[in-house]
């Protein structure tokens, strides 16, 4: 790349190691003045680690950062702020109990003889904010205003204090469409003022809306930096997911699909997922595809009653059922293996045996304990059937490997003999061998006549076992692929589709 302009911030060869993993490996990032630079990558790609290295929250293990040609080495977020690198986080990191002006000026209030001049502070806060298109009373507490306004105040604070580089870490995650536009107009103004802006988001259309350049990270490495005017959303998605996307011909067993088991009609939850409808048959695997934040987990949680829906209904074999909590779902013989195995799945200090029996015992009620012999029989049979490798059933489950933990969780739900099994990222963070076994198990369960809903970011995996794939984008169901349509290429196209449309009309 031969750019005439010198980058404001140039990070080279940034490396960061955590015990057992390489979080960042030789990462390079150039930020130019007056440019919005999107930082993209799936979860765990290293985006936030990179940001933390830049802002001094983490100490990097290798590499250099130059700011305006000077090498810098910030030791804390406060230090990087002084150097000129300001950060705004997804969760507004301001103080709701203080006034807008106090938030804006905390730590640098105008003082005279040690006494803060409130009048001066409020006046200059008002002046500053009007520069951002906000006409609000700075003497009101911050909590009186919407998240979008709080976000703009946070940006104003970061810019006023730093003024060279502004890092926006998922600032739009909890904003609605109009609020995003408010934020974007502020970003455009700052761009015009010559700031270098880093923009992190999971919303691809927003990336193409506001950014000039994008750097894509995967597994701690930069897989590419692109000028966005030269590429299509599909190129970017391909870079992010980074798989061999030539359509491999899958040997698909189109086993006979059974009777309709579950009908979901316009189930929705405001702010989480738009109304969606879905029909599931016995002996069918429906895949849920979409980028992170597209609503996969939300869909699973809504069906299982982890989150209460505020609209729509669910029918089981034609009968209306109400699911207000996971207990209701379990009573209807639903099961859910959550995405976050460590915090939502396993009970780390309990034995493998207790973990396997947990859901079954919970359904029975605590007054009717399952006899010890029966427990052992169930646990042992699943350990054998799923080939869970362990030294003893008594060992705490947290000592097992990720793959074996996942299999034990599957055993927990299979023990309840479910009719409908929801798996949220069943293969995340497990080794290749266990990966293949879990996929084989999904096939097996399907052939046995169970209905499965599997959310996954592994496209090839989805292609391998799904009889249908539902694609989600921006918390909305955007398309459904069946039969031969199910190829990684088609899924990527469906995920990227609307972003492409936005660019064409822009």
């Amino acid at each position: 790349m031969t750019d005439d302009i010198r980058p404001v911030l140039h990070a080279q060869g940034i490396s960061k190691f955590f015990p057992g993993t390489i979080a960042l490996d030789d990462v390079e990032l150039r930020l130019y003045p007056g440019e919005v630079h999107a930082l993209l990558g799936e979860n765990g790609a290293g985006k936030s680690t990179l940001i933390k290295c830049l802002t001094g929250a983490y100490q990097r293990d290798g590499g250099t950062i130059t700011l305006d040609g000077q090498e810098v080495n910030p030791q804390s977020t406060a230090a990087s702020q002084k150097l000129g690198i300001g950060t705004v986080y997804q969760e507004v990191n301001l103080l709701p109990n203080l006034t807008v002006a106090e938030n804006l000026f905390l730590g640098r209030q105008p003082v005279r003889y040690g006494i803060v001049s409130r009048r001066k502070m409020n006046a200059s806060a008002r002046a500053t904010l009007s520069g951002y298109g906000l006409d609000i009373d700075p003497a009101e507490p911050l909590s009186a205003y919407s998240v979008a306004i709080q976000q703009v105040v946070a940006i104003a604070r970061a810019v006023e204090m730093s003024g060279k580089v502004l890092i926006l870490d998922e600032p739009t995650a909890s904003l609605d469409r109009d609020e995003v536009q408010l934020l974007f107009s502020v970003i455009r103004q700052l761009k015009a003022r010559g700031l270098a802006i880093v923009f992190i988001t999971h919303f691809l259309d927003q990336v193409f809306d506001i950014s000039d350049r994008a750097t894509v990270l995967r597994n701690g490495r930069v897989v590419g930096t692109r000028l966005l005017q030269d590429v299509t959303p599909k190129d970017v998605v391909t870079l992010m997911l980074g798989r061999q996307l030539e359509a491999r011909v899958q040997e698909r067993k189109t086993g006979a699909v059974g009777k309709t088991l579950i009908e979901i009609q316009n189930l929705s939850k405001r702010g989480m997922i738009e109304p969606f409808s879905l029909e599931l048959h016995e002996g069918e695997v429906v895949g849920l595809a979409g980028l992170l934040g597209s609503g996969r987990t939300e869909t699973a949680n809504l069906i299982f009653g982890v989150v209460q829906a505020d609209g729509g209904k669910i029918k089981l074999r034609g009968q209306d059922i109400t699911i207000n909590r996971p207990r209701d779902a379990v009573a209807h013989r639903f099961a859910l293996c959550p995405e976050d195995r460590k915090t939502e799945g396993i009970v780390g200090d309990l034995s493998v045996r207790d973990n396997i029996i947990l859901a079954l015992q919970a359904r029975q009620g605590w007054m009717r304990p399952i006899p010890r012999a029966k427990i052992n029989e169930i646990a042992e049979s699943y350990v054998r059937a799923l080939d869970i490798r362990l030294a003893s059933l008594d060992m705490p489950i947290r000592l097992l490997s990720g793959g074996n933990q996942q299999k034990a969780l599957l055993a927990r739900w299979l023990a309840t003999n479910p009719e409908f099994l929801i798996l949220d990222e069943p293969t995340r963070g497990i080794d290749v061998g266990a990966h293949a076994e879990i996929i084989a198990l999904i096939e097996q369960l399907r052939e046995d006549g169970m209905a499965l809903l599997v959310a996954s970011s592994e496209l090839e995996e989805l292609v391998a076992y799904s009889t249908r794939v539902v694609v989600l984008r921006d918390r909305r169901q955007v398309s459904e692929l069946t039969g031969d349509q199910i190829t990684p290429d088609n899924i990527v196209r469906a995920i990227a589709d609307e972003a492409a449309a936005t660019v064409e009309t822009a």
Partner: protein
Amino acid sequence: MIRSTHLPLIITLATFVLAFALCGYAYPSMLSTRVVANLLTDNAFLGIAAVGMTFVILSGGIDLSIGSVIAFTGVFLAVILRETSIHPLMAFALVLVITTAFGGAMGALIHYLEMPPFIVTLAGMFLARGAAYVLSTESVPITHEFYDVLQDLYWKAPSGGRFRLIGGVMVLTFLVGIIVAHRTRFGQNVYALGGGQQAARLMGVPLASTTIGIYAISGGLAGLSGIVFSLYTSAGYSLATVGVELDAIAAVVIGGTLLTGGYGFVAGTFFGILIMGLIQTYIVFDGTLSSWWTKIVIGGLLFAFILLQKGLTWATQARQRTVTGSAAPS
């Protein structure tokens, strides 16, 4: 301009005015400068300690040690004035240094060891009380003539009320406390800490110095309160002021400060103290009621104020304004 954040303060003030009016209606003689003067004198030590407690609670913490520190201060002064020929003013300075350092040390433990303030100050409470016992287990009278001088300092109002020195010290402490809390960077940092430690850290608030400063202020003011208490009783007794920390917490909460930190006013605590004192005075005037009624009324008031705070929090959340004035040019 009245803002929603001022509402608890206004309610406290209204409660005080209403209570005073009721008292005046029942016993017209309560509407005298004498009663007001006594209200200030009798509650001086509690008020001073409550200013420190306000800072602690505003920051989201708690200080259980102050009752013990007050007792320790009293015993320390009594013993040192009996055993040595040191001037009381020197003794005052000495004890203020000790109590401030004691508070600061607790703050340092809380910050650097990331220990809950409850535990650390509970330890401080036992430590200070134990130190008082070590000095003397009996009530030690203070007979220094300088004490008589200080105790005889008062301004007599035309209608007969005697505004004594210690009441003045309390009022002065409140005035300084108000300025520090609301008009200095340190005060803003205290509120920031109470609003959210994580956010405060990211915004560059110096957590260590602020936390240590807060508990040092609380310790130092407990020392000052102990000095005032020794002037009030002319003695030092290691069994005195048991549970005063709880009275102080009650005054702070009745004064409209949120126990979880971040919201409240030092001035509110002043009226909290006055309300509590007023209840006591009323019962004295009544003569037939047992003094335990004070505790019952204060308990009821506390409940009412906690409910009120919760209600206000809900109300603010429900009324979160959306984009009010976005004139964003795009």
